[in-house]
């Protein structure tokens, strides 16, 4: 018999498929390791609770619904855009939850001040997965 599970959260959107691709905007020049053409782990930390930012996770855009240009233009300064695979993010124990037609959050990341080791670990793993699709 097939079991039916209720949704894990109150999202009106269905879970993203593992083959989905998401974009993360690179908002700081210093998040780019120019020497090795890679993004650093600094791009994948949640800002502290009291900032009121990143409360639902790390902000990303859904590639199927949003162009790279749209991602760039939604920020006053954007030094690049990286892509990640939802399935590979799930492989490391995190998830991606869609909350708007074009937007989602990487969930499961701890705050640095709550669980420093795992915040660093996950930030590094995400950085290693990320690939530039746009760079200034």
């Amino acid at each position: 018999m097939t079991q039916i599970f209720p949704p894990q959260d109150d999202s009106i959107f269905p879970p993203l498929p593992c083959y989905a691709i998401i974009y993360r905007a690179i908002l700081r020049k210093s998040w780019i390791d120019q020497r090795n053409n890679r993004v650093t782990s600094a791009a994948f930390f949640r800002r502290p609770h009291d900032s009121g930012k990143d409360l639902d996770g790390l902000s990303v855009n859904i590639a199927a619904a949003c162009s790279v240009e749209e991602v760039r233009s939604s920020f006053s300064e954007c030094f690049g855009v990286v892509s990640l695979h939802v399935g590979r993010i799930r492989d490391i124990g995190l998830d991606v939850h869609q909350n708007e037609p074009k937007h989602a959050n990487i969930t499961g990341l701890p705050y640095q001040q709550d669980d420093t080791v795992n915040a660093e670990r996950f930030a590094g793993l995400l950085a290693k997965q990320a690939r530039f699709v746009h760079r200034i």
Partner: protein
Amino acid sequence: MITELETTDITPIPYGEISQRTAAFYRPENYAISHRQEQSREPITNSPYRFKVEFFLEKGWPIDSLLADLRDLLKEDKEDEYGILRPTSHALSVTILLIVEAYRRQHSEWPFGCVSTDSEGGIRIEWNSPKGEIRLVVPDSDNKKHYIYYEFGDKYDIDEQVNPGKLVWWLNQLI
């Protein structure tokens, strides 16, 4: 953290001359050690903006690039959309103290590092090699946790005993 650093052996420094680029960091208002110099009343420089160390810096060397990247952070706007962009004086002075002293202890095979700030003005430096990864994290203020994150294969953790000797030891694991 400052106290801990100040109790380590950071002998001030009767050796060759640091580059103008690095010397620019050692303005007394930014430099934690200046406090101690005042206490000891041992002048170590004849100019407030010059400083002497035992190693040479050449353009393009990893340490030179690192210090230049730290300097460049000071040229950034104070804030951006992500948060505080420019490092705090605490983060900058502690980072420079650690880096310069670590480099003074060992300046062969110093790896290239990647410098950034967090959303509160703390400084992060990442070093990578095929063997693993080290991250020095100096927060914006003294009451937050300073640490070195290390990752070698499946082993990863943080080392909260941050001092120049430890930094050199961890960097050596990358070589």
